[in-house]
């Protein structure tokens, strides 16, 4: 992939829709995502925020009936163009899922999976990448003595951080988080949130969350979606303090949802 233009927006999404068969899950959404910021997407269940998130690294390709329409640019390149290298796209735009999903192999193998797929074979180089990724995901101290134990032996929060480390090992420019803390307890959640904030120095972050406090705490920008439409998008401070749209206000004050 070649970069065409360098703007401060890493993703430029314009009048972008996603269909499941005939059902329009995302309706002509427009959103620009800025580099090295945390952008949160909130909205009630089924509003299309996860679908939009998964469109950013084409994870929707795995769903047979799913079909995108409109403009979605990553560094000025059309994500959905058939010539776009989806493998490269997913390496540069990583994803962390709602349920921690480590592979049923050792902690080391989990993190080394991506680099190995990329073609890195040298053990010493892999060791460095694994350690680096685990350090950045703030889990190194907890697992450094048991790298050969199964990734499934960890606690839920540790597993999620392992999954983040696994994504970081691919040196992504963007990390997409799909409700990363909805299966975790408050302490693990706090650790993940801290981690997300620390990661944004080097990485652009897009996070889908049901937890409005979480969006308010960690994000720079917030997008509110409702029934597939992008209702409001702007600075988190403004959206939470003085929303322009009545729907947004009702949602964040808990009057519906």
């Amino acid at each position: 992939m070649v970069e065409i233009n360098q703007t401060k927006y890493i993703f430029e999404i314009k009048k972008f829709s996603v269909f499941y068969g005939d059902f329009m899950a995302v309706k002509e959404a427009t959103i620009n995502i800025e580099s090295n910021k945390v952008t949160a997407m909130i909205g009630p269940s089924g509003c299309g925020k996860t679908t939009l998130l998964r469109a950013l690294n084409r994870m929707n390709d795995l769903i047979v009936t799913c079909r995108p329409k409109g403009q979605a640019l990553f560094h000025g390149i059309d994500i959905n163009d058939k010539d776009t290298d989806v493998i490269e796209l997913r390496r540069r735009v990583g994803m962390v899922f709602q349920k921690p999903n480590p592979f049923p192999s050792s902690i080391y193998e989990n993190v080394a999976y991506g680099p190995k797929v990329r073609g890195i074979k040298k053990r010493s180089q892999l060791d460095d990448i694994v350690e680096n990724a685990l350090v950045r995901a703030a889990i190194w101290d907890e697992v450094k003595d048991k790298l050969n134990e199964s990734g499934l032996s960890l606690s839920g929060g540790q597993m999620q951080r392992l999954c983040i480390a696994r994504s970081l090992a691919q040196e992504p420019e963007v990390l997409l988080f799909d409700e990363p803390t909805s299966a975790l307890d408050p302490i693990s959640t706090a650790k993940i949130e801290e981690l997300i904030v620390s990661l944004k120095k080097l990485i652009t972050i897009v996070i889908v969350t049901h937890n409005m406090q979480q969006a308010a705490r960690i994000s720079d920008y917030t997008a509110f979606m409702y029934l597939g439409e992008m209702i409001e998008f702007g600075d988190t401070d403004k959206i939470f303090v003085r929303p322009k749209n009545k729907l947004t206000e009702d949602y964040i004050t808990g009057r519906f949802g």
Partner: protein
Amino acid sequence: MRKYIPLKWQTKEKFVEIIISSVGFVSVIVLLLIAFFLFKEAFEVFYRAGFYHVILGTQWYPTSDPPKFGMLPLIAGTLTVTGLTAIIAIPLGLATAIYIAEIAHYKIREFLKPLIEMLASFPSVVLGFFGMVIIAPILSNWLSSLLAERLPELLRNTSLPFISTTLADFCYNKFFISSGLNMFTAALMLTVRAIPVISSIAEDALTAVPRTYREASYALGAGKWETIYKVVVPASVSGLSVAVILGIGTIIGETMIVLMVAGGAAVIPHWIFDPIRPMPSAIAAEMAEAAHGSLHYHALFGVGAILFLITLVLSLISDFISKKYRAIKIGEKV
């Protein structure tokens, strides 16, 4: 008029429990009795003819005088034909499963999956018949003349070292098929029998791999092939081994096909085109003519007992693997 006294609920519960458990026990008891009967009848031959003579004897002449009950040719027949079939059927069966579960478009999958499962219920006598009237003549009339006559001739004419001499002789000696009813034909037909068994079980194992593993792999920039062989196959390796073992079990126990196309010669085979007499076909062919209570009769039960032990061990192994697999799944958090 007698007054109607309703049963206590405990009595009802007990009653239902007794009925259901006795029905369940019937089948278990029947199976145990069959196994007991099998070993009781088989014991005679091992006792009278000597265990080692029976197991390691190379001559199976049950009707000559004195009769000889060396089962090694039968055991070797079963093992060789099973091995040859396994070499062909396991890669094909697993590849079919991977194709259906991972690669095929979902419309093709919906059509292929029931088709393969239907193939599993294909009557083996029809397969045997097909092998007998179509595959066997092709092998003995066409393939044999092609590989054992034309090919060596062609090779000799090249007058190259090694190829014109050693390789040509090898073809001439080894590819001559005197009868189409042999181990190779049997293995081909058994492959048709085993593929649906292997692939449908393996396909279930592959489909059972959580979608989240695949998503994780794709999200890390892995391609389809890497996801299949680095994530999906390792995660389902126990299910795949069960598929392979049950497939082998099917091949070993399959009677009709080997009875019809394996050739029926009770000699230890030396090459894949030799006729063989695997254990099930020996039992099926000879039981009708063996006098009840004769040593021949007991010897056939002996063959059956060995067959039973082999398949029992196979199913125990597959049971062990799937139990171990289940234990891991339960231990898995979240």
